[in-house]
């Protein structure tokens, strides 16, 4: 049977090739020791304030890495978790991390243990504070809400992949009076975090958070590469605008025909 699937073509090779090249080149450059600039990301700076507030009030911190499974998105959330745990460990403040995936649970547990060790605060580590709640979305949400009301944390961090349950978590976090910081690349959930959280990290910024907090050269380099990638897309769009205008105004001309068969056709 003949397959009707579509496959790569020249334009794909060029555009995806450029993206790949820019990202890899900048990663290599950064690893080679080139100093790179990253703009300030609002919200991430307040993480430390929130940890401080919880310490002052003598209350715990709650952390949710979202409802995603083992993916980059969730691993990114875990790197924020490590950051929070290390800060909290210095003051002996509890961090209650509630996880929605069994594999993520084991990784999170391991990472928190390491974070306490790195701060020489192993005696504060409590295995019961890293919890696997449920891998079902709303069961997780209901258990997280129960936890919020019982533990009454002073700071709530919501990082990772979220769907409809975002508002259930955040509105209850607000009700128990915690300072809340959220971050997610899921555009549909951002408005609800904006409405209920004190600080929200939006869209693409979420992917930059790891680089911003860790200052790891590979991640910084990749971030710079992504900026170039966006420029590639902008240029593609501008060429496209010109081509589309040309074909719309003078459909019969040779230029228009060439552009539509050799360029516009590939973006259908």
């Amino acid at each position, binding site marked *: 049977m*003949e*397959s009707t*699937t579509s*496959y*790569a*073509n020249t334009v794909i*090779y060029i555009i*995806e090739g450029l*993206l*790949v090249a820019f*990202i*890899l080149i900048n*990663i290599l450059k950064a690893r080679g020791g080139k100093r790179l600039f990253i703009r300030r990301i609002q919200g991430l700076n307040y993480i430390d304030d929130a940890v401080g507030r919880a310490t002052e009030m003598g209350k715990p911190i709650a952390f949710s890495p979202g409802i995603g499974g083992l993916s*980059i998105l969730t*691993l*990114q959330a*875990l*790197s924020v978790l490590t950051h929070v745990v290390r800060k909290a460990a210095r003051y002996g403040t509890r961090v209650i991390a509630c996880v929605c*995936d*069994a*594999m993520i*649970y084991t990784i999170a547990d*391991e*990472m928190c243990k*390491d974070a306490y060790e790195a701060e020489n605060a192993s005696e504060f580590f409590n295995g*019961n504070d890293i*919890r*696997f709640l*449920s*891998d*079902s979305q*709303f*069961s997780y949400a*209901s258990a997280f809400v129960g936890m919020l009301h019982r533990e009454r944390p002073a700071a709530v961090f919501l990082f990772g992949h979220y769907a409809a349950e975002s*508002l*259930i978590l*955040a*509105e209850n976090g*607000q009700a128990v009076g915690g300072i809340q910081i959220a971050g997610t*690349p899921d*555009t549909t959930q951002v*408005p*609800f975090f*904006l*409405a*209920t959280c004190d600080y929200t990290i939006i*869209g*693409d910024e979420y*992917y930059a958070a*790891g680089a911003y907090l*860790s200052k*790891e050269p*590979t*991640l910084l380099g*990749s971030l710079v*590469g*992504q900026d170039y*990638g*966006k420029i590639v*897309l902008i240029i593609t769009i501008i060429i496209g605008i010109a081509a589309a205008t040309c074909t719309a105004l003078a459909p019969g001309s040779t230029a228009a025909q060439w552009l539509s068969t050799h360029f516009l056709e590939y973006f259908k």
Partner: protein
Amino acid sequence: MHTLFAPKHGVELWLYIAGSLVIGAGLLLLLCQTPQRLRKPVIAFVTFLGGLYFTLEFLIPHDNYFTHVMPEVVNAEIVVSCFTLFIGIYNLFGVHGRAIRRKQPGWYNSVAFFAAFFLIASAGFIKDMRPDSAATPLFEILFNGFMNSLQSTTFSLIAFYIVSAAYRAFRIRNSESVLMMITAMIIMLGLVPLGSALTSFIPANSFFSFLRLEKLSYFILLLPNMAVQRAIAFGVGVGSMAMGLRIWLSLERGSFFDEEL
């Protein structure tokens, strides 16, 4: 080769299965013996191979072998990923078992957890084996009566939370919150028949017809909202491409990837 992989039956089949398990265990033992310095490269290589499959399937610019074996590969992926089943159950049993053993406050809730778990799981399995037994209605009760209603009621809590969130958040504090508030209000009015009736006095074909709420909300959803979403999507697209690359080529950094092996 062909006869080796042909379907086997009876005792022969079980011998083959046992044989594969023994070979598999041997391979795992071999992996256990892998010297430390080789471990990261081995993981990187396997990750690369995994990624290479889908990459080649797409980048070879014509009908190719990889496309044809796709259903089998996908099937294997699903099956193997299902083996993680017990990890979550193991964790939960640990937590709630401890709560009961130590008679922690609210330990009876943990009893309810175990009861619910075993009831629904065993009802499910028994109902599949004997559909005419009492397990079938019991499963219906647990599933439709309890689980579904808990799930959909929890979901529907959002209806209430969205009201309190809107009420609290949409204050004329700064230009940003005002913009968000006004846009949300226009969309809310424009999307429902009663809201759009507010401006139905404006003739549909007049110059000012764009001020009708349904037109206005349609315009916002179609133009600014679409442009914004597309802009975010392009950023996220490039970001996920970068992540995919970093993972595929084992360039990713961060706690999970840097741990000592």
